[in-house]
């Protein structure tokens, strides 16, 4: 079974080094565009967006010596398809009360239809009037259903709708990589 799609009908599009380099580059880009870390805050979308946000913040601390706070956001209550899905477990949002005047970098693992991002922007509004909202994703897989784009992209990966993109991270999955799965039961393709 040494075909492009192996035993699990999946193939790897980023390995651990690719992931590390992509996140390092995004960290630099965030610093460059924002001219440092003043008023900057990272908001990760559960689950893997939070992990990626933490890594970006660690990188920035390494490169710049300053700490960018990381908060977590659960968007389940802002989705436009609550009645279409089995209720997903909701995790507590940790966002501090007021983000007014802050520059928020939203962080997610996969950008897909854009609906999660729309929901997260609705949610952010309830925490104050951010000066600016930027978006960082590890993978942009296309198929947008809304007029959205990411400011920072780890890798553009063209996909078909039958495929699912699975980002795996050491903290949650024991390994760092990105794989494309054909019509499996991936749980991570709804970026």
């Amino acid at each position: 079974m040494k075909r492009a799609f192996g035993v699990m009908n999946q193939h790897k599009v980023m390995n651990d080094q690719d992931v590390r380099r992509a996140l390092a580059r995004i960290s630099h880009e965030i610093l460059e565009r924002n001219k440092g870390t003043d008023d900057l805050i990272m908001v990760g979308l559960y689950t893997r967006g939070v992990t990626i946000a933490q890594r970006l913040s660690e990188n920035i601390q390494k490169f710049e010596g300053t700490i960018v706070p990381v908060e977590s956001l659960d968007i389940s209550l802002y989705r436009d398809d609550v009645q279409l899905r089995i209720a997903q477990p909701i995790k507590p949002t940790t966002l501090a009360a007021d983000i007014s005047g802050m520059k928020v970098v939203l962080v997610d693992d996969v950008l897909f239809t854009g609906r999660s991002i729309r929901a997260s922007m609705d949610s952010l509004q309830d925490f104050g009037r951010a000066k600016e909202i930027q978006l960082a994703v590890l993978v942009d897989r296309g198929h947008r259903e809304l007029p959205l784009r990411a400011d920072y992209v780890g890798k553009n990966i063209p996909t078909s709708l039958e495929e699912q993109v699975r980002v795996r991270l050491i903290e949650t999955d024991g390994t760092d990589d990105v794989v494309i799965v054909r019509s499996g039961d991936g749980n991570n393709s709804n970026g």
Partner: protein
Amino acid sequence: MTLLLSGLGMVITLMVDVESNVIGSQNVNAAGTNRKHILDVDVLSEDEILNILDQTDAMSEVLRRDIKKVPALRGRVIVTLFYEASTRTRISFEEAGKILSADVINMSSSGSSVDKGESLLNTGLTLQAMGVDVIVVRHPYSGAPNLLAKHLPKVSIINAGDGLHAHPTQALLDAYTVRSKLGSLKGLKIVIVGDVLHSRVARSAIWAFTKLGAEIVLSGPNTLMPVGLNLVDGRANVLPPVSVQPDLDDAIRGADVVMALRLQNERQNGGYLPSLREYIRRWQITKDRLSSASKEVLVMHPGPMNEGIEISTEVAHGGRSLIEEQVTNGVALRMALLYQVSAGGYQIEEEHPNGQ
């Protein structure tokens, strides 16, 4: 007096096994995670209860925000249908629904067609025909919510208290309150004091607490301990194993949580008690009595309280009292349940309770 003393020190077991598969299949959906109805705690597994408590955690975060509003249930209609008086349960459901952006309509039996003799079922069918998504029902007859669940295929039913049967949302919010204070219910000694016989709160609480691993001790006059159990839906209305310890001072020794039940007015004059004074003397939760419990003992009461009867004012508003937290948590818990029964468009017809 002799009657009351005769049960001193007696420990009995009220356990009969439940055919959980029959009942459990009633309202669990294909994925096994979302329930369409919340009728009682007895059919919920430990995992399901823990899941609900975790969701309640997430919902309490919303309650602490400056802007307490999320759009999750926009466009959903919730009716609170109350055939009995209520303050906190009803307001709490209404607030929970509104925070989740649902439209909440309050209906009470007085002033509605119920006054003209409309049956519960016809009222339910009317609401269903109006496109109502969730009915939160409180009714003096045990099993009323089950009846609605059985006959209204398009509506989710949440039991807000039915007769002597169940009050699942109260039990779950109590479990949540204890867990948020002590981390877990495993191995805790929880004493429930008072009129257990007529208490749907106690019955559901016993289920919730024991499923989460707590040890339950009931204390109160023997006349108000459950012996002859009522029936709901023709199945035995049974309880998990509990101890009965009529002497409150013995019962309370080493307790982690003491929960006082409301002594309803009709029991006070209904021949269940020799006198109210004797009840107060023997079963009121007082500061003195609590001194033999665990140092960190927590005091709960489902409300509304008769201060000075089942609980002293000093204890009710003292540092060990969780009574206000129970009310706050009630909103978050009800948000979690409303969200759970409303989400999941894949709930299919066959999962609906249509008898067994």
